[in-house]
C-alpha cells in the first residue's frame, strides 16, 4: 500500500502549490519554518499576498542570491530574505500582537499529526531529544485560518490524520484545512470532510491511509496540480 501510494503521491512542491491557490488577494500570511516556506514560491500571478515572519518583518520577498545575504535580514527559519516595497520592521512583541491578535489571514504549518477535532501536533515527537517550540503555539491560536500541509502518511506509511493526536499537542482545535499528498481535507464539527482527492486513488484506499473517518459533504472534486 505504502509503495503504491508513493507512486501517485504529490511532491512537497505540489502540496505547497495547492495550498498557495487558496491564498486570497491582499492576504497577510505566515508560513511555518521549513517545508511551509515553499508555499510563497507558488503564489498565483497577479494575486498579492503579504508575508509575515515572527522575527519582525512584514512584506518580505524572495531569497537573495548566494553571497548577497544580509544576515540582519532573515526569516523565522533564519534564512536570508529580501524586502518588497512597503515592508515594515517591528519588535517581537508587536510581531506576536499581529499573530495572537488575529491579524493574520492565514498561517500554513507543517504537522506530525492532525486530529479530526482540529488538534495539531507539530513541535515535539515526545521521544526525548531537545524540545523546541518557537512560534508554532502562538500561530495556531492567532491566525484567522490555520492550515496544514503534510504528507498524508508518515515515511513508514502510517496515517498522520488521526482521531486523536498521540504526540504532544501544539494547539487544540485549531486546524481547519489540511493539504496532503493525496487530498484536501477540511475539519468541520469535529470531523474530517473530504473536499478533493487525487483521481488516482479510490475513496476506500484514501480512507485506509487515514486514521479517522473521512466524511463527504457535497462534491469531492479531483485534486489537480501541475507538474513542478
Amino acid at each position, binding site marked *: 500500500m505504502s509503495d503504491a501510494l508513493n507512486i501517485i503521491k504529490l511532491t512537497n512542491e505540489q502540496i505547497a502549490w495547492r495550498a498557495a491557490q487558496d491564498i486570497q*488577494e491582499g492576504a497577510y500570511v505566515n508560513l511555518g519554518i521549513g517545508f511551509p516556506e515553499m508555499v510563497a514560491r507558488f503564489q498565483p500571478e497577479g494575486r498579492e499576498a503579504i508575508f509575515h515572519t515572527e522575527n519582525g518583518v512584514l512584506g518580505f520577498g524572495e531569497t537573495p542570491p548566494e553571497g548577497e545575504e544580509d544576515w540582519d535580514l532573515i526569516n523565522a527559519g533564519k534564512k536570508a530574505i529580501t524586502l518588497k516595497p*512597503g515592508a515594515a520592521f*517591528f519588535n517581537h512583541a508587536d510581531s506576536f*500582537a499581529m499573530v495572537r491578535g488575529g491579524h493574520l489571514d492565514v498561517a500554513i504549518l507543517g504537522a506530525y499529526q492532525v486530529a479530526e477535532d482540529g488538534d495539531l501536533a507539530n513541535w515535539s515527537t515526545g521521544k526525548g531529544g531537545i524540545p523546541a517550540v518557537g512560534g508554532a503555539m502562538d500561530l495556531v491560536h492567532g491566525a484567522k485560518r490555520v492550515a496544514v500541509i503534510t504528507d498524508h502518511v508518515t515515511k513508514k506509511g502510517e496515517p498522520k490524520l488521526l482521531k486523536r493526536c498521540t504526540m504532544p499537542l501544539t494547539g487544540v482545535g485549531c486546524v481547519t484545512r489540511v493539504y496532503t499528498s493525496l487530498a484536501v481535507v477540511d475539519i468541520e464539527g469535529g470531523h474530517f470532510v473530504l473536499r478533493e482527492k487525487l483521481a488516482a486513488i479510490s475513496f476506500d484506499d484514501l480512507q485506509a491511509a487515514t486514521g479517522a473517518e473521512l466524511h463527504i459533504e457535497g462534491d469531492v472534486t479531483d485534486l489537480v496540480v501541475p507538474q513542478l
Partner: protein
Amino acid sequence: MNKTIASLREAVAPIGDGATVMIGGFGGSGAPIELIHALIDAGPKNLTVINNNAGNGRVGLAALIEQGMVEKLICSFPRSADPKVFTDLYLAGKIELEIVPQGTLAERIRAGGAGIPAFYTPTSYGTELADGKPVAEFDGRPYVQERWLKADFALIKAELGDTLGNLTYRMAARNFNPLMAMAAAETVAQVSGIVPPGGIDPEHVITPGIFVNGVVEVPDPKQEEILNREGAVYP
C-alpha cells in the same frame, strides 16, 4: 492591493447604529477631526466611543457628542478647557461614562489588539475604579485584573500613509492612534499624504499596514485647538 479610500464619506460609511468606535488623539493632538466630521454627516446613532477625553469646544468629538450620537463614552479624562457639551449631557443623565485610568485605557486597547483578553495592573488598586474587578496577589503585591478593549471601528489620524496602510505619525499626535489601529476590526486612517509602497522607510513605519484597512487623504488637516480658538462650530 491598494487601501486608498477616495473620500471621507466612503471611509465612515460602514459605521452603523450602535457601533463601538475608537477615536484617536489626546485632546486635539492626533484627533482625526475630518473623519469625525464625516461621521457626524453620516449620522449613525447610539455609538459607544473610546477616546482619552470627551472633546473640547464644539468641533470634533465634542460636536459628535453634541449631535446626540454618542450613547456611551469610555475615557480617562472628560475635562478640558471647554467641556461644556459633554458636561451638560452627562449631568442631564443623557450619556453614559466609563472612567478608565489612562495607562489602563492604553493597555486595555493594546491588549485588544494583541490577543490578550486580560491582564493585571497595580493601577487603581484600592480605589473605587477597581470596584467589582478581580484582585490577585503576585510576589506579595496586589493587582487588579483588567479586560481587553476592542472596537468595531477605529478612526485615527496619521501623517504619511502608503497604499498598503503603513503609517507614520507627527510628534505627540501619535499617542493612542497606533494602539487603536490594532484593536479595531476595521481601522481607517486619515493621512496628510499617501505615498506608494516604499515611500516610507521600513525602519520608520510606526503602524504596519496589517493593522490598517483604509487610508484617506486629508492634505491639510485641521487642528482642534486652532478651530476652537477660532470659535468654530460643526456642523
